[in-house]
């Protein structure tokens, strides 16, 4: 019987995002040459939120992109083709930019590996940061996040669901124990 517990409610998520936005600006030493790239699907909405928060503080718009990594997955052979869910669109040239990859949950690291490969096909950023709302551990690759909303300990079979208002009607992060 799976049990669901809340990791972040609406207010906790708002606080986490606000802190993440200022951490991004701090790490990048300002918002010049900064670009946020959300990973389909919910990374896109989170990137959008972070961009709005940064704009409020810094007074300038942050270029925003989205990435669908389906075609860069390394498990096509074992799971078969997935429907390609979303578009990939980057707001401009990546060369020399500071790119912040935004995703909802960091787990094995394979999605981020795919995202790094995909970004490399678009250009050569000066730096790439990784920003995730929930880090649930369980890495299979040497990949770590630079900016983290919250950390939760999980075991295999657990699920972490991030919900966003735009798509799901509410802001929250839930842990579903198997």
């Amino acid at each position, binding site marked *: 019987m799976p049990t669901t517990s809340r990791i972040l409610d609406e207010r906790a998520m708002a606080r986490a995002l606000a802190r993440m936005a200022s951490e991004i600006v701090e790490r990048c030493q300002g918002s010049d040459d900064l670009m946020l790239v959300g990973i389909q699907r919910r990374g896109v909405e989170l990137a959008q939120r972070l961009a709005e928060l940064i704009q409020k503080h810094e007074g300038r718009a942050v270029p925003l992109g989205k990435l*669908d990594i*389906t*075609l*860069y*997955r390394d498990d*096509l*052979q074992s799971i*078969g*083709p997935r*429907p*390609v869910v*979303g*578009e*990939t*669109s980057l707001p401009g040239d990546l060369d020399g930019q500071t790119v912040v990859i935004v995703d909802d949950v960091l787990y094995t690291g394979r999605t981020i590996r795919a995202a790094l*490969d*995909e970004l490399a*096909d*678009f250009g050569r950023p000066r730096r790439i940061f990784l920003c995730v709302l929930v880090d649930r551990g369980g890495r299979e690759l040497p990949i770590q996040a630079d900016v983290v909303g919250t950390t939760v300990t999980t075991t295999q079979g657990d699920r972490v669901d991030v919900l966003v208002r735009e798509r799901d009607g509410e802001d929250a992060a839930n842990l579903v124990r198997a």
Partner: protein
Amino acid sequence: MTSLLGKDLIGLEGLTADQITAILDTAEPFKEVSERSIKKVPALRGKTIVNLFFEASTRTRISFEFAEKRLSADTVNVASQGSSVSKGETLVDTARNLEAMRIDMVVIRHHSSGAAQFLGERIRSNVINAGDGKHEHPTQGLLDLLTLRDRFGRIKGLKVAICGDVLHSRVARSNIWGLLKLGAQVAVCGPPTLLPRGLESLGVTVMHHIEDAIGWADALNVLRLQLERMEGGFVPSLREYNRIFGVTRERLERAPGDIVVLHPGPMNRGVEIDSDVADGPHSVILPQVTNGVAVRMAVLYLLAGGAPDWRSQAADER
């Protein structure tokens, strides 16, 4: 493991409306891949694909090859000239020999109707029909559907007239199946000698005057008049065909609304279609070609899930 489409793509007749829609939806993100500066994604890395063309083709073969390369597959082209096919090797022997080299997919064009299915039933690799005789040319049907959907935002309820040599056309057959399954209204228009019998029973309207088709349709799909049909006595002369059935600017100007013109190529300018139509504002002939690559990428990608398991094959052979 079976993919969304099963093992092979033989024709649109064998697909459901949902499967056709899934291919068209999958093609959308692949359009964008071809606009990137590095036009390549690693989705089919390590897959080996043979393009087996027993009939001349420029557009379809190149389109498949681009689609394969943009998905990072390894490709080999085999044409009937210059291969052991010209020494009399049978289709199945050729394919079995290729398969013994552990290929994953075969794209086949053949002059005999049913060749793709015949091959698909006899080898483990995925088989994609790139045109078999007078039967089907499913990826052409799909790219026509995608082009219409791009232009009108829907297929359902659209009125499409397929004009010209429907009798000998695999493009027409794939279009009729695809359009009917997605809920379009379909008419065919041409001289009685070039229209097959029995289409009415599928729900297809038959017309014999190009003016009627232009007055009725949202889109015309103008087929190539295969010039070798002249000798068969199907049409008296090319000039007469153009005078009676040619899609000309004058005729299009009398259309009640905006009308879109498709042509699968290669065109006989001045026969079934006039140059000022082919190059004019009604034409979506070049977008069709662009969409062809995206649709073929989608088909290859979706079929890749049903790839053969070579380890069990090797065990069988022992």
